[in-house]
């Protein structure tokens, strides 16, 4: 462990030195990242070490000052999630809903921030004029820039939906329904998160390509074009799955992300190594070489890239360890304790799954070069995230473990009244197809047929009739159209009465 840390420090030192003079324009300073806990012997490189930890993953994952405050709150105030007894608006349930909402808002904001930075990088790349006698990302390469803007559209859509749901959650006036709505943001948030990260990685490749085109006249443009095409192909299926916003596809794509990031890291490394070799062959001047090297310094992949030289895969074999400051990789903080705390809240409320957070931590920690497709986090880290069987069970879209994942989906709001609900605001991110639940066959039959009461006639408690009677009658008696919030509040009462958990997933309409 000590040796590993030392090795890491040496490597960081090497790369740190290389980037000192070459990184004036990076502007990626991150105030939050704690200083590297490297040994004092190495302090001769004070330059940009502190910025290292946060540079990785979506800035979504980096912290802000507010989180320090949140961290001091009691750790157990979200444990009542999903607990029916917290019906009253003032109990631990309401507080937990509020803190969950806060975590969702912060996570959304951070992804938005990362996305904004990625967009800025795209426009900057697109705006760079090809210098005289040089190439830039123009001509045939513009398609690779367009690829980025195409993704940006759905990412904004997903974040918009998450925000709409969060807003609705804050107004609904029923704690369980509020948490139910917040859980609906999960897949959207998760998709936007990892989609933004992939896009940031794509920006890295474009930066590298740009540097190659400008500084390596001997490098083959055709080869570069093909390389980028291949990389794009590697990202495409994952991006498509994420863009679907389908909880199961998003979850599968997310858990496979560390592996994909491993492949992309290898591609990046290879591309850079080949470029370097070509440049050496052509006797390129040091400055040009460094221009290409520099791309690595600002890369999203920085933490997982093997260091060159020497080409020792420094992060291999360095485990993730939970400490008071956060999750450590060797002496480096991969994710801050504040970030872990935010994730813990989201995990406990069932917004984000443990495998998704694990994937994020692995990527953040640069643990993507292992051969395994999915590697679980060490127990200490999982404990810090509040992992446990009941938490895993709550996130029913998860592939692993949840027994309900095969049970059929059913609409909570009867489809034959789709239009009625539409007129009352159940549209877009909140249309009635978004409010489906998985029910075991017996449960489903029971709520529609009354189980074995054998009344010999239509059961008075049949679900569709029951809630439509309540809604129609309430509206008629109120003398005005019910709002979406009032409808959700009324429906929440029946979900409790029928013991249907408010774990909504999208289903297909007929």
């Amino acid at each position, binding site marked *: 462990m000590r040796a590993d840390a030392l090795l890491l420090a040496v490597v960081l030192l090497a790369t740190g030195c290389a980037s000192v003079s070459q990184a004036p324009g990076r502007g990626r300073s991150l105030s939050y990242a704690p200083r590297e806990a490297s040994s004092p012997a190495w302090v001769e490189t004070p330059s940009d070490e502190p910025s290292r930890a946060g540079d990785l993953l979506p800035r979504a994952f980096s912290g802000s000052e507010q989180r320090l405050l949140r961290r001091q709150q009691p750790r157990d105030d979200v444990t009542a999630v*999903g*607990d*029916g*007894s917290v*019906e009253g608006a003032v109990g631990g349930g309401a507080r937990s809903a509020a803190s969950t909402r806060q975590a969702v808002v912060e996570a959304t904001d951070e992804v938005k921030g990362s996305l904004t930075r990625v967009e800025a990088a795209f426009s900057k790349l697109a705006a760079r004029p090809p210098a005289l006698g040089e190439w830039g990302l123009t001509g045939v390469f513009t398609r690779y820039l367009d690829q980025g803007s195409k993704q940006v559209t759905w990412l904004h859509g997903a974040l918009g939906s998450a925000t709409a749901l969060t807003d609705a959650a804050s107004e609904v006036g029923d704690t*369980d329904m509020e948490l139910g709505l917040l859980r609906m943001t999960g897949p959207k948030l998760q998709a936007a998160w990892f989609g933004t990260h992939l896009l940031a990685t794509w920006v890295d490749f474009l930066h590298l390509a740009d540097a190659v085109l400008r500084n390596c006249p001997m490098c083959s443009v055709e080869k570069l074009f093909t390389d980028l095409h291949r990389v794009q192909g590697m990202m495409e299926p994952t991006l498509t799955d994420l863009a679907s916003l389908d909880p199961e596809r998003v979850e599968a794509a997310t858990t496979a992300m560390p592996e994909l990031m491993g492949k992309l890291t290898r591609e990046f490394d290879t591309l850079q190594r080949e470029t370097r070799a070509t440049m050496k062959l052509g006797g390129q001047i040091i400055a040009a070489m460094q221009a290409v090297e520099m791309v690595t310094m600002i890369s999203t992949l920085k933490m997982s890239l093997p260091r060159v030289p020497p080409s020792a895969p420094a992060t291999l074999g360095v485990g993730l360890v939970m400490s008071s400051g956060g999750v450590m990789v060797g002496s480096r903080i991969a994710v801050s304790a504040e970030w872990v705390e935010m994730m813990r809240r989201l995990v406990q409320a069932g917004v984000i799954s443990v495998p998704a957070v694990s994937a994020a931590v692995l990527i953040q920690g640069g643990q993507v070069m292992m051969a395994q497709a999915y590697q679980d986090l060490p127990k200490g880290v999982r404990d810090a995230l509040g992992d446990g069987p009941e938490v895993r*069970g709550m996130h029913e879209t998860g592939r692993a473990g949840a027994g*309900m994942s095969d049970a059929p989906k059913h609409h909570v709001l009867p489809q034959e009244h789709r239009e009625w609900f539409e007129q009352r605001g159940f549209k877009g991110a909140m249309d009635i197809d978004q409010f489906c639940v998985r*029910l*075991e066959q*017996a*449960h489903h039959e*029971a*709520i529609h047929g*009354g*189980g*074995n*009461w054998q*009344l010999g*006639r*239509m*059961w*008075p*408690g049949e679900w569709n*009739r*029951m*809630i439509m*009677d*309540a*809604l*129609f*009658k*309430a*509206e*008629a*008696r*109120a*003398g*005005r159209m019910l709002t979406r919030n*009032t409808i959700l*509040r*009324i429906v929440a*009462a029946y*979900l*409790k*009465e*029928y*013991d*249907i*958990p*408010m774990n909504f997933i999208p289903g297909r309409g007929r």
Partner: protein
Amino acid sequence: MTDGRSWKGNWKARLYERVRERGYDSLTAFAEARPTASLVALAEELGRDDIAGVQVFGGLVAEAERSKQLTRLVRGQFVRELYACLPTGWPSVLDDDARLEVAIALGHWFAHTPEIHKERVDRASDALLAHPPPPGWQPLGPDDELLRTLLPDEEA
């Protein structure tokens, strides 16, 4: 609320076992001893994780049909709904907000009324809104005087 455990196994047997454990010989007796409790609260008292409110409702309807006490049950349900939606009783001013809460309570009441009584419940609701009860009115059981005039026993 649980994760659907209420519907596992023989829940009807479970329901009655719990009722007996608490010293009642019928679900109706258990429920009438808690006249303002909601169905969900009744269910939670019988089984925090494995009894659902609608099961209690189904059981109460079945018992009331057998004993020809359906009207009484319907009145009892009104008490529960009103208590949940208007915890301080009938509003003194029927502004938009208050009217919405009354409307929601009446909606829940109507929904929890067996088919043959729906029309009577509708008429009773009309009467209640046309001639509002005194502010603060809060019936505490199916024998409330005003409630009985709105929905008198019909059964033989």
